């Protein structure tokens, strides 16, 4: 079970695709203007990631090494098409507001990266779990960034939740305060870059504090007996 714990820790914190690997920055920065969009894209990416990790892990023994990347990309593209059609069918509003970034999940480096680095070398169960944890880590970064940008720019949280979850979810929208003029910077891409920078800095601060708290393990000093004469 320790191995699974390790995978979870890697995906959520130590090797977080958003904060540490800085993969998939394009959707990360482009769609996080609201929490709803961020959650929608995060969930879609997570679904594709789990699916592609499972399929790649299943076919890993048949795939010739030389052409593995095109095959992985085709698997991912097929899955993205499925997800895109599903979102189109069941959450049309969200489909419209995510726009081109939904099909662009194909090019998200997190997915091909995990297929190449993890799923093509590990068992199906582990790969599925890794896909879930990496997707969750990505989703969490998206959600935090989306929520903070939405609060700063419009003073609301979960605006348009009904696009994602159905009509009942409009009660989830929270109006924190009313702004006469929205803070455009938080809504625009530069604000996403600045917010992302703050998130990474915050994570580094936490890591540093944790490292200070845990005492360094005593590494025995390697000493070597001198066999040549000094002078």
């Amino acid at each position, binding site marked *: 079970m320790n191995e699974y714990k390790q995978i979870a820790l890697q995906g959520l914190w130590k090797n977080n695709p958003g904060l540490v690997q800085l993969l998939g920055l394009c959707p990360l920065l482009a769609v996080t203007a609201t929490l709803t969009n961020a959650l929608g894209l995060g969930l879609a990416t997570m679904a594709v990631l789990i699916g592609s990790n499972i399929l790649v892990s299943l076919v890993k023994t048949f795939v010739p090494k030389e052409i593995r990347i095109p095959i992985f990309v085709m698997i991912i593209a097929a899955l993205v098409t499925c997800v895109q059609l599903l979102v189109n069918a069941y959450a049309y509003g969200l489909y419209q507001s995510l726009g081109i970034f939904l099909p662009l999940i194909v090019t998200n480096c997190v997915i091909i990266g995990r297929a190449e680095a993890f799923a093509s070398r590990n068992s199906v169960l582990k790969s599925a779990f890794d896909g879930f944890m990496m997707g969750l880590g990505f989703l969490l970064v998206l959600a935090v960034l989306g929520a903070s940008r939405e609060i700063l720019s419009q003073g609301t949280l979960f605006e348009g939740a009904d696009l994602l979850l159905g009509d009942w979810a409009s009660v989830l929208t929270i109006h924190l305060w009313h702004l*006469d*003029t929205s*803070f*455009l*910077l938080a809504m*625009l891409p*530069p604000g996403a870059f*600045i917010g992302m920078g703050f998130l990474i800095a915050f994570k580094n601060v936490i890591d540093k504090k944790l490292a200070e708290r845990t005492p360094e393990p005593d590494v025995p000093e390697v000493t070597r007996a001198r066999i040549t004469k000094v002078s």
Partner: protein
Amino acid sequence: MAFKIASSPHLSRSLQTSTVMQRVVLCALPGVATQCYFFGWGVLIQVILAITVALLSEALVLKLRKRPVTDTLKDNSALLTALLLGIAIPPLAPWWLIVIGVLFSIVVVKHLYGGLGQNIFNPAMAGYVMLLISFPVQMTSWVAPMMLTSQPVDLLGSLQLIFLNTSLSDIEAYKLGFDGLAMATPLDTIKTDLSMGLTSIESFSRAIFNDGFGVGWFWVNMAYLAGGLVMLKLKVIRWHIPVGVLASLFVCASAGYLLNPDTHAGPLFHLFSGATMLAAFFIATDPVTAATSVRGRLLFGGLIGLLVYIIRTYGGYPDAFAFAILLANLCAPFIDHYMKPRTYGHRSRN
């Protein structure tokens, strides 16, 4: 007898950072006073508010960064940043505008990059650009000069507008009550008129241009020019950057005016409108973010002038100095790399 042995440089200058900054602030005061005379108490209120916020936030960040608080506060750099930002924004803008701008300038642009001397962008201008793209409506409604309004706003009215009427609709109502309190700046007016098909001569016949320049703006620019010349005399700044900016703007504007006088404003209008003199002498010459060699400074100034002319003529924003200076700041390390002066005793590279 013991000789004192010191390492180079052996010729020390008496000017310290705090003195330089203090002199820049003092030289800007005539311009600030002229601006107050033409645009009312709002200018002064914004500047005071900006300085208060700047000093407080600087102290807070220094404390967080575990740096000496009072020593760094005394270098007057936060004071200068706040002053420049305070006179750059519309005088009757709501109070939170300047607070957000100054916080961004000091905390993000200056201290997140490592404090004074490490920042790659001019803090005041980066704060201004942040405000301009975040709050375009508030940032572009400039106050009309006092002479053109039927009933100028007094001190109490300015305070009320800035601190109480935070919502935009209230300000609109207030403006109507005072018969057109807000109006476009001369640069904005001529740009709108030209885009509507009027010629520049027709545009210049409006009330806001009484003598070929915008009302008030000519004297504001003259006051900053005078302050800038005093700074040159005191050797606070060198002449290269201001001359580069003004010469390049003059050449570009003359070329445009000679090619087609109907659709371009003249070179003198460009030199004495908007923030030209303020930016050329006080903002572009920031020692931290500008180029450092002689040729590099001329090129840096020339680049700013060219960019200002392009953005003023073809861009969407009324005045262009903030964007031009930020873009030139980006180029400054590159300029410095290729404009290294020849060291004594070595041949030049080519």
